[in-house]
């Protein structure tokens, strides 16, 4: 059962039928919107980048993005940069895998962000989504759609945070501007 999340909504990352999740995937997919006009078939390439920032008690400890594809401890892995987005629909264009059981004990929050590296705003992107998948069985746990994008170039998507012995996910959906996650730090901090 997919939950279509709305801004600020929090869900607990528990397996159906009890048990805690061991690995989740944050998938990101998008397409460049076709341009109107005479050369309508000429779409411009849009490069969105997914990043994950690992926090310990509100201090950034590590970050996973296209330049650093695996967190030092090995618990968070980026499957690699996609520079143009999906030609078709549906599939994840970039994904970040989180092995929750291996996340170091002091890391209590992982924030996922999406940036437009090429500088187009989300108005020029279509069919963009972010979803959280249970990596052990491929089941989609939550989906968050980026449609209705406005004049901004980044979005703080969601965070996964410790909740007792397990983990919870909260949809954030906060618009921001920036080319890489560094530019977003001031916008991320209030959500911790």
């Amino acid at each position, binding site marked *: 059962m997919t939950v279509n999340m709305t801004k600020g909504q929090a869900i607990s990352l528990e397996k159906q039928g009890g048990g805690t999740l*061991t690995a989740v995937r944050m998938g990101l997919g998008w397409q460049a919107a076709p341009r109107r006009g005479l050369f309508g078939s000429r779409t411009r390439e849009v490069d969105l980048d997914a990043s994950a920032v690992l926090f*310990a*008690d509100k201090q950034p400890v590590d970050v996973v993005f296209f*330049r650093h594809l695996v967190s*030092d401890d*090995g618990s968070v892995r980026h499957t690699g*940069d996609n520079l143009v987005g999906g030609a078709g629909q549906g599939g994840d264009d970039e994904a970040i895998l989180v092995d929750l059981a*291996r996340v*170091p*004990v002091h890391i209590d929050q992982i924030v996922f962000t999406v940036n437009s590296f090429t500088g187009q705003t989300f108005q020029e992107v279509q069919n963009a989504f972010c979803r959280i998948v249970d990596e052990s069985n491929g089941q989609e746990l939550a989906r968050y759609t980026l449609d209705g994008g406005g004049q901004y170039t980044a979005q703080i998507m969601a965070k996964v945070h410790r909740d007792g012995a397990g983990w919870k996910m909260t949809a954030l959906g906060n618009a921001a501007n920036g080319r890489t996650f560094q530019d977003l730090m001031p916008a991320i901090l209030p959500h911790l």
Partner: protein
Amino acid sequence: MTAELIRGQNHPLPHTRLEIRVSAGHPVVAGATLGDDRGRVQGPEWIAHPGSPALPGIEVSQQAAADHRLALDLGALPAAVHRVTVLLALPVGAGGPARFGSVAAPFVAVTGLDGDEVATFTITGLDAESAVTALELYRRQGAWKVRAVGQGYAGGLTAMLGDQGVERPGEIATAILDAVARGMARAVSAPPPRVPDADRVRHSAPLTGSDHPDTAPTLPVPLPADATAADSGGGINYAHPRRRSAAPPPPPSAPEAAPPGRPATPVAGDATGWSMDERLYNQVWGMFEDLARTTAAYRSAVDFAESRMDQELDRVLSDPRSRVGATGDAAREAARAKCEELTTRAREALDRDLAQLDAESEVVEPALPTPFARWDNPVWHAYRVPMEIPMALRLGDLHLPERPELRIPMLVRLPLERGLWVDSGRGHSEAAALLDEGRLRRLAMDTAVAHAARLLAVYPAGEFTVHVIDPAGSAAASLAPLVETGVLAGPPAAGAAGVAAVLARLTERVDLVQMAIRAGAADSLPPGLDPAEQLLIVNDFPHGFDDRCVNQLRYLADEGPAVGVHLMMVADREDASAYGPVLDPLWRSLLRITPVADDHLADPWVGHAWTYEPALPPQGSAVIRQVLGQVAEARQAWGR
């Protein structure tokens, strides 16, 4: 046609009038130093920089910029100049980034006057460095070549200029940065950052070594298969760019997957690969990475716990109400308990992973084939001369202080991609400091002989040839196993004449093979030429070496590996200090290993300092002689 260079690669230059274009995506200072035939920069008048932008034959821009064009006329340079080093530096103190690791990878291109690119180089893998030598243009036998260098300096321009032998490098570095600051004050605004393709170059596994302040060159640990393939220079890399060669980490011992008392049992060869050897190789690299990462998690947690405790204790101290009395004590106690609790949990997670790796190591180690196995592994007693070259060779063991008993085999790919340097100097190692100089030199030579014996043993009969240079005959005792079993190409070369003869032979061989390969006529080599891979062991360097021999040695280090000629230097860098920086590229081109435990090797993922111990036979063991005896017999049987 453009040549895309990788670090260390060189390329001939067709013209003498050239332009060097730099795109960095962020303002950088570009400059150049001129070096004489020994690589030395003779003085400040040999440095082109924003404060002194034009020298005969070269002109650089007067300010920091994201894009540069350096004009260069190699024909107009003074005759004494044999080398032009193009350098980049971040304008420190201008409020910008202070390390290349936080900006896009700089891209440099050598172009003709018509704008045609001759060679390009993207300088990846930089981290804390604030200055980098990008390219070196050098005169070789009357013709100019360009070499991609990419050597970064965390100590900035001062460290770089000092490394090039400039006197008072600090003053010159300050003068350069002052000139840049003036230029910035003049400039209207920094040019907008470009988005060159190079911007998207991903940093591969960082190749940093531990930075001992006085050994600037860092010593990379060899990368796993896919990354080394990209590094080896030339040829097409068929490795999938994003496919890990190492196996996925062993399943985490998740609570529900492994009930207490019954953890997942590790199996040797539990990794991908086309053969058992390849699977074991990948498994060893998987264990190496897992140990690096789990230790990184532990260290990060402990650091965090301690810094949080420090902050909390500071807060207690700075609050006058809680400075004395019960409230303060309780707060201090609470801070300590929090730190303790987190550290304990981190240690539990580490111990869980270490137990898993211990168990894996216990099954993997006995299953290793001879090239990967320790000398005390029984597999060496069943040794047979192989029919094929193995994929890798064990040089020793690596471990971390968190679990010194857990040894990861250090495997390097064969054929060797770079030479070896067995450091016989006292260096920084505690173990080395305990030994007297003579004992350490003896151990270094024993280590070199053990590595050479292993190489001889794992190659098929007659496919690996070892030469030895021992100018003063001081290593006769160590060399006995090689000499007495008759596996050397000839007796160890002694005296200046012997040194010169061996070097001349190997230099000629490199020249011939290179010429044949360039001409596409590899089968037209003279019939007497030994087709085997060649290893040259050099003891006592630079004793017995004249300048000509030193140059030949540098040539072998540069050009040899590509045509199967490798160096194994057994040397103390101090002994050769009279040569100054001219030998730095030689040391840098070799993989430094030590005869005793020393923590100088870095892993390619997180850069921990790993303690290396060489693979040596047990005390009093005759395994090396037995194995070499079989090698000699097999050669006779095969008539090689």
